[in-house]
């Protein structure tokens, strides 16, 4: 072994070693303030994992029937996306992914949990931060259906009291609870969230902690006529502020408010007014959203599943390397090295491009390990045949790669077609499978074809490596096959 071939051989060996080390540890260039490694090349352990692994929630939302206008759907969806992102930011949830599907008119929200965080109530989060749509003002009065004093009190662990019998006749109006009081709606909506230009959390000595509302001209007019009416009532009328079907505040109206601003006062903390102002400001989705699909994954289960698939990857890799080594001997050893390079490259590619891996994605990586050796199997079988037909080792290796190549190409093209179609039609987790198989198939061209070719060519003129046993061809068998030579070519 000398010259160009030797150089290629050792390049592959060294490259494999380096790639495996990088895949395991990454390339670290010092530490940041928190003591974490700064990675120039990210290791396999920093692969981004999908919410089926980290745990988290994914929801698909659609405008409620008849609420969306096809003409403005696209911009409305963009507004929805921006609002949801803003709300999540305000909730201190920084890792999220919101996307819109303009064709089907949908918004997809994915929120992975931070590692080890099991405290989140996903449904509540989606309800509060994502779905809550409309803010409106409507007159309310204290409910006289059920005296407030006998209102059922719920304690955790006790049985729910039987619902109170409603008087026959007209159905009872919906009752809204707020700070122990019960209210019912009166009349129609006075003001929409869209009539409000801005809302801020303020404090002054006179009113204490409060929310300052600034109206748009339309809002100012509606608000002034409504407050004029309510302030004349005895007792003073109550103005309910609703977020969808939640009553969030019900201040009494003392005077007609004719200017462009108003304040909401109450026994508020600074946090509460900030939240309220926020809800008012961001509470104006263009339409009410329905959750058409929600998946919540418990973080513990996902992590456990991920660990299992990592073990599966290592075991499969080892098994296949062993199989190739035992069955094909020296070429099998090189196929094993190429497979190691393949796996390391694939993991590095995924971690450094920031592709998100799901559990099916892991299955795709493992499957592509099983499929990557196909190229080697085709070529090695061909080399064996050429050897049996009496060719020299050198010539057999050349012929094996030359003749095997079209078959390898065919296999890869058809697999790529299938994976690409799956990627196009699939959803979320399945797309990750399509992507990892695509990457795996493409990489196997470099590793299983080129790298193992370099290694085999280099060793085929290395005296010590030319013993027939190393190539899986026995002398005896060779004679038998040679007898058939005219047929086997």
């Amino acid at each position, binding site marked *: 072994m000398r010259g160009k071939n030797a150089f290629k051989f050792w390049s592959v060996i060294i490259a494999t070693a380096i790639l495996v080390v990088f895949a395991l540890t990454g390339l670290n260039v010092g530490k940041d303030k928190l003591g974490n490694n700064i990675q120039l090349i990210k290791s396999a352990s920093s692969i981004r994992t999908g919410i*089926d692994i980290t*745990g988290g929630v994914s929801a698909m939302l659609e405008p409620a029937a008849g609420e969306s206008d096809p003409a403005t759907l696209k911009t409305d969806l963009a507004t929805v996306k921006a609002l949801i992102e803003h709300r999540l930011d305000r909730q201190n949830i920084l890792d999220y992914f919101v996307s819109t599907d303009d064709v089907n008119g949908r918004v997809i929200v994915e929120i992975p949990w931070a590692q080890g965080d099991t*405290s*989140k109530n*996903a*449904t509540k989060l989606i*309800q509060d931060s994502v*779905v809550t749509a409309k803010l409106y003002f409507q007159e309310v009065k204290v409910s006289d259906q059920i005296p407030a004093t006998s209102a059922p009190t719920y304690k*955790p*662990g006790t049985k*729910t009291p039987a619902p109170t019998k409603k008087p026959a006749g007209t159905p009872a109006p919906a009752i809204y609870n707020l700070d122990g009081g019960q209210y019912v709606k009166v009349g129609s909506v006075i003001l929409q969230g869209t009539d409000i230009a801005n809302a801020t959390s303020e404090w002054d000595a006179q009113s204490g902690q409060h929310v300052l509302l600034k109206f748009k001209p339309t809002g100012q007019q509606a608000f002034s006529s409504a407050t004029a009416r309510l302030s004349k009532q005895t007792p003073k009328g109550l103005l309910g502020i609703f977020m969808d079907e939640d009553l969030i505040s019900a201040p009494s109206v003392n005077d007609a408010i004719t200017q462009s601003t108003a304040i909401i006062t109450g026994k508020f903390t600074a946090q509460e007014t900030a939240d309220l102002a926020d809800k008012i400001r961001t509470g104006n989705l263009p339409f009410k959203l329905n*959750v*058409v*699909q*929600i*998946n*919540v*994954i*418990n*973080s513990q289960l996902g992590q*456990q*599943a991920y660990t*299992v*698939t990592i073990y599966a990857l290592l*075991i*499969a890799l080892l*098994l*296949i390397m062993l199989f*190739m080594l035992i*069955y094909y001997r020296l070429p099998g050893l090189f196929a094993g090295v190429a497979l190691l390079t393949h796996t390391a490259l694939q993991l590095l590619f995924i971690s450094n491009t920031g592709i998100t891996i799901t*559990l*099916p994605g892991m*299955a795709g990586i493992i*499957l592509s*390990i*099983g*499929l990557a*050796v*196909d190229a080697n*199997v*085709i070529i090695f*079988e061909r080399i064996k*045949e050429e050897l049996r037909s009496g060719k020299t080792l050198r010539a057999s290796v050349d012929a094996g790669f030359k003749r095997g190549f079209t*078959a390898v190409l*065919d*296999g890869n*093209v*058809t*697999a790529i*077609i*299938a*994976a690409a*179609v*799956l990627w196009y*039609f*699939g959803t979320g987790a*399945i797309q990750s499978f*399509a992507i990892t198989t695509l990457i795996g198939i493409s990489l196997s061209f470099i590793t299983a074809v080129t790298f193992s070719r370099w290694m085999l060519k280099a060793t085929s003129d290395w005296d010590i490596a030319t013993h027939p046993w190393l190539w899986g061809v026995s002398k005896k068998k060779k004679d038998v096959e040679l007898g058939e030579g005219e*047929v086997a*070519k």
Partner: protein
Amino acid sequence: MFPFVEKRRIAYIVVGVILLAGIISYFAHGFKLDIQFQGGTEIKYTMKDANFNTEKAQSVISEAINKSVSVVSSKNFEGTMNYMVVRVASEQTLTAPEILKVQTELNNAGFIVNVDPQITNINPSIGAEIMRNGILAVFFALLLIIIYIAFRFKAISGWSAGVIASIAILSDALLMISVYLIFSISLNESFIAGVLTVIGYSINDKIIIYDRIRENSTGRKKGSNVEIVNLSIFQTLTRSINTALTAIMSLAVVFILSTMFQISSVAQFAFPMIIGVAFGCLSSIFIAGPMLGAYKEANAKNNARGTTSKSRR
């Protein structure tokens, strides 16, 4: 050498029997659809222990949300975790407030449920859409691959080989579907992914055998079409089996480990691919190759007898 071509009818019968069983199962109980395709709601709470009354939980939930639900108790593989699984019929899914209400009411009724349950809630229309996309994907992939075959086989063995290869991969897909029908395994997107992967894998097997048939018949080989096909299948046999073996090996590791640790989503993913790869490998050896051999032989006989003969094999 095994007479692959001569014994081809055994393979046809085996395939026929499985397909027939699939058809009978279809009329007997139809397809079973996963929640992913059918839509519905499933909530899986982790429980402290297995001592909870599922009937009581069922009545509490039904009363709270006024929808009929089923509640069952389940465990993980090691038996260390207990779950309460709440399911709602497919035509009814739960809204986010309803899910919250279920949680509150369960807590009020004395069931201590965690705030971090596993929830799968799929609107039936979305489920139908995912299924439609899956079926479209299978057809589209088949179409593209048949185009590829047509393009490739013009050089290899002509259109007839392309048609036979397409029949073989179609039968692979149908066999997979039959297995799911016979054993009433629910279909989901993982199954579609399995079918697509197998289609992509299986055609490759056929191309390699056909490639060898072409090579052997254009070379200086002597022998009838049947002999050449038998030889070609035999020569590529090790490759066919070894490739299927390595693919199945990697998938089997995934399947066994995920079944052991009850990661059903992953097990569901690997299973269709294992049976599909096995079918793909077997159909290349026992169907696609022999069928082409029989066709070529029949063709050759016809040519030899000249145009007067109408008898076909």
